[in-house]
């Protein structure tokens, strides 16, 4: 039986007493993508962390490849790529060294793939500079490179286009497109839809902790409204 790469079943999450996520259900198959809209504080980042297995759900469960995300075995963790607001980059290492580190962790044999990635994210010229000297946009590009370095089968990205300039956005799109082409299941969160318009993503809106399919005014509502207090 083929398991869905990404699945959330009735996921709920409490921070203290307040429910940040309620009954979130989501299914993403191979080569498919989902885009989740929500304003700041709506719980998008929390959802992405739960899907990745970094946080536990207070109710329901998040599954990757049919297995609980929280208890993934190393050989499954090889197949996951995650991008969040935090870059997971070491400021005192160079771009190349950062990628080499993650290549080592993900058991990739790859000076070639690292050079390739650096080129494709437009960072080849600064490959040997310390990340602490990077601008936010350059850091984001490197974070993207880090997330996909292992050619993951599951890609979870929390606002992947943040701080990227036009060229950066194009490069990012190219990488995501290639990942989708490979059959990678993708979940992306965003403020705006238009940048992802070229992909056939299923749209959702995270409003007050509930995940709803987004059409028409729901989407506008999600990005315009501020989250409920507490």
């Amino acid at each position: 039986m083929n398991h869905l790469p990404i699945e959330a079943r009735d996921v709920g999450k409490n921070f203290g007493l307040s429910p940040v996520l309620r009954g979130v259900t989501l299914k993403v198959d191979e080569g498919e993508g989902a885009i989740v809209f929500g304003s700041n504080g709506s719980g998008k980042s929390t959802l992405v962390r739960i899907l990745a297995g970094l946080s536990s759900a207070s109710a329901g469960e998040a599954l990757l490849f049919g297995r609980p995300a929280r208890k993934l075995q190393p050989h499954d963790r090889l197949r996951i790529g995650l991008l969040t607001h935090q870059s997971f980059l070491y400021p005192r290492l160079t771009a190349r060294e950062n990628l080499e580190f993650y290549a080592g962790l993900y058991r990739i044999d790859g000076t070639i793939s690292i050079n390739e990635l650096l080129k494709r994210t437009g960072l080849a010229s600064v490959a040997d500079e310390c990340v602490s000297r990077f601008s936010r946009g350059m850091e984001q590009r490197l974070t993207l490179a880090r997330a996909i370095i292992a050619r993951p089968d599951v890609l979870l990205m929390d606002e992947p286009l943040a701080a990227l300039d036009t060229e950066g956005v194009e490069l990012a799109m190219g990488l995501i497109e290639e990942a989708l082409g490979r059959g990678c299941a993708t979940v992306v969160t965003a403020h705006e839809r238009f940048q992802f318009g070229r992909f056939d993503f299923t749209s959702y809106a995270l409003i007050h902790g509930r995940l709803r399919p987004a059409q028409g005014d729901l989407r506008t509502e999600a990005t315009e409204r501020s989250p409920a207090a507490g």
Partner: protein
Amino acid sequence: MGIKAAHWLGVVTLAIMTAAIFMVFVYVPTEAQQGNVQRIFYFHVPCAWAAFAAFALVAISGVFYLWFGHQVWDDLGCAAAEVGMLFCTLVLITGSIWAKPIWGTWWTWDSRLTTTLVLWLLYAGYLTLRAMADEVSQVGRLAAVVGIVAAADVPVIIVSVRLWRTIHPAVIVTRQGSHGLEDPRMIATLLVSLAAFTVLSAWLLMLRFATLRAAARLTNLGRQLALTEAEMADRSAQHVMSSRR
């Protein structure tokens, strides 16, 4: 844990403790060498027993909490630590009260008292962790790990402190001698006192545990309430939207 069970245990505690107090102050003969002060021994030793047993319970609850994840075990560990700390403090205080008239000093570095002091520090660390980490959601797991490592450490502490004291000829002779109880009445009194303190600590543990469990239930209710409120807000929002169309 029913209120009734706690009440019954409280009554039993009162009964045995009354018997113990009677035996300690009236029944048991005065010890030849140390006089009446020696009676504190019958409180000192059971307190020590309670303090160490409680710590073992902290560690065991910790293991179960890490294994099963149910909040119950975390609450048990927390309650055990608080009760244990109480008795550990009493051991040190009674030890001090005993030492002063006999040896003229408030504190002796004899192996048993020193080990209890280290245990007290372990308790203090554990409870401070719980107090400071209260709003952190993983406090239970952190506390469990600390409890387990500390409890596993206790045997090593006992051995090392004992060795430490015997290598240096003690300035103050250890109380080992005075634990030789000749009169059978002394043994009886000690046993009754042990029973009394065991039941007392069990009762206090039960009370504290019940409080923590009630707090956990309250939190759950609070969460359910918040959930219901959110769902009601959902429904009124939907109502507004459909009436707009």
